């Protein structure tokens, strides 16, 4: 660091001189922010507006020679009156609710245990985090292998531990297990994420608060519910927000696991959208579908963020 006295001894540079030697602060500010804004406008906002426009047409991206017609709200009406799509939305809701439930429950419990700061907690944390470093493509593909009744690990372990014959059930097949199997895989992969956030929350609680509670002779149980939980809640809600948004748009892992089956039991709305857009190439129709999903997630997220801010203020 330069010696301030030395620096003061030199002439303090006047703004004009600085402007000549370098750029003004205002220019620098714009220069620094502009590329980011420009990139987001080009790759997020412009395409979004384009999607809105396409959603009112019958355009198909794989038929360049066909005439494009404006069809008004027909795509939207078709989608909103389609029972199949409402069923897909319910599948998505089921998937979202239970993945969030299990990840919060297990993630928080783990963080709470790790926060006991036992010996080796640092190593275990690093190991637990590993599943989320895998590519969803690899995870989806490999779990079909793990779920295979005769040659996979899951049924083998169940037989080993409970004696239930491995071939007597199929995790991804009919029989109602499939929606739960995809929840298990997502929970396996992403619980560490929730755990890390909770851990960050727990570590942010200063010790003196517990010390004060201890002096007040509050029971451990009471401390947990009146101190720990409220203090960690904003973090938990943040975790739920991130996971919720991610799982709402996720499709790759489940496509590889079940392809939406058996029947349509695990056909998430995002998978259906991907099929309409990039397999059936109904571009106009799927644009409307995409907008409906986007409005849904944006609406839910906005309400949620308001609630989150309220919790933070408390």
């Amino acid at each position: 660091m330069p010696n301030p006295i030395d620096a003061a001894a030199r002439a303090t540079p006047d703004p004009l001189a600085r402007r000549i030697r370098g750029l003004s602060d205002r220019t620098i500010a714009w220069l620094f922010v502009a590329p980011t804004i420009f990139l987001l406008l080009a790759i997020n906002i412009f395409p979004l507006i384009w999607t809105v426009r396409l959603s009112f047409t019958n355009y198909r991206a794989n038929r360049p020679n066909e005439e494009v017609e404006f069809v008004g709200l027909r795509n939207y009406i078709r989608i909103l009156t389609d029972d199949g799509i409402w069923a897909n939305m319910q599948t998505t809701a089921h998937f979202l609710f239970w993945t969030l439930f299990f990840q919060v429950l297990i993630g928080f419990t783990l963080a709470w245990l790790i926060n006991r700061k036992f010996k080796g907690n640092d190593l275990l944390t690093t190991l637990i985090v590993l599943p989320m470093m895998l590519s969803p493509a690899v995870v989806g593909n490999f779990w079909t292998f793990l779920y295979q009744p005769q040659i996979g690990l899951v049924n083998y372990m169940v037989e080993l531990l409970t004696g239930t014959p491995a071939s007597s059930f199929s995790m991804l097949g009919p029989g109602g297990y499939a929606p739960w199997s995809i929840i298990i895989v997502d929970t396996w992969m992403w619980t560490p994420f929730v755990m890390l956030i909770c851990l960050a929350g727990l570590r942010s609680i200063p010790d003196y608060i517990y010390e004060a509670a201890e002096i007040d002779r509050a029971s451990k149980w009471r401390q947990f519910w009146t101190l720990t939980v409220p203090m960690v809640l904003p973090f938990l809600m943040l975790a739920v927000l991130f996971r919720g948004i991610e799982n709402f748009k996720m499709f790759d892992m489940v496509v590889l696991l079940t392809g939406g089956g058996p029947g349509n039991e695990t056909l998430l709305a995002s998978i259906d959208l991907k099929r309409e857009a990039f397999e059936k190439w109904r571009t106009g129709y799927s644009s409307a579908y995409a907008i409906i999903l986007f409005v849904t997630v944006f609406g839910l997220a906005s309400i949620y963020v308001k609630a989150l801010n309220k919790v933070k203020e408390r």
Partner: protein
Amino acid sequence: MTAYSITEPSGRSKLVAGLLVTLYTIVTLLPLVWIISTGFKSGPDSISYPPKVLFEPSLEGYVNLFTTRTRVAAEEFQNLPPPETWYDEIVRDQGMVIAGPSRFGERFLNSVIIGFGSTFLSIFLGTLAAYAFSRFKVPLKDDLLFFILSTRMMPPIAVAIPIYLMYRELGLSDTHLGMILLYTAVNISLAVWLLKGFIDEIPREYEEAALIDGYTRFQAFRKVVLPQAATGIASTAIFCLIFAWNEYAFAVLLTSGTAQTAPPFIPTIIGVGGQDWPAVAAGATIFLLPVMIFTILLRKHLLRGITFGAVRK
């Protein structure tokens, strides 16, 4: 924290917690261990019914990952010169000969270029923007910051169609540049928010002193702020890299021959009649290593990164 603090958990509760977490770690790592061990199985062992826990290790999976093999007519096979290398021998044992290298190397290199390229660009642009938001009066600052955050909420498929059409027009389909820009756009919101938190914490006095010392703003940014923000930049980089490294959906849609990354390639390696599970597992293992090492090196910063900088040290 002192040893006699009343908030320090008791020895017994530590032990119980340690045991429970260890148990969870074992259960959660089982599938991962299974993947890694499958990489060292032979083809028949990998799909053995019932599954094999103990097996004779083989490098077949790794050899198959990096080569393409073909069968030759029986009499020709008999007359081949003896295998020259250990990997020739492994392929010969499967009754095949090596036809050439596989595309895995290229795909992996693409992943490196696109993953690290977009991480670098996200950090570069993100640092500039974060610095401006942290230090200067930017008009509509809060609105702009919220706008940047909100782009994170957009389902990729909502914009995938126009991006696909736009890239087709601009010739960015299946190019490294196109994918780098795309992943950067997805990651930049995270980068700006995280880095702003880090830069806010660097005392302004340092720069002011430098400015008085005759540095320009730009020089002060480069020589004073950047080194101070190094750890923050590193932790931001992990999260940008994890996303860009593993991304699958856009990679499948927008790339084919030139710029295809490894994730669309690995899960679908087909060997002699059917999925080549050892090769898939070998690919998954190799592909996990770089992010794993990166994470272990920077694990201290993981906690801050994951909460969008919401946690202060």
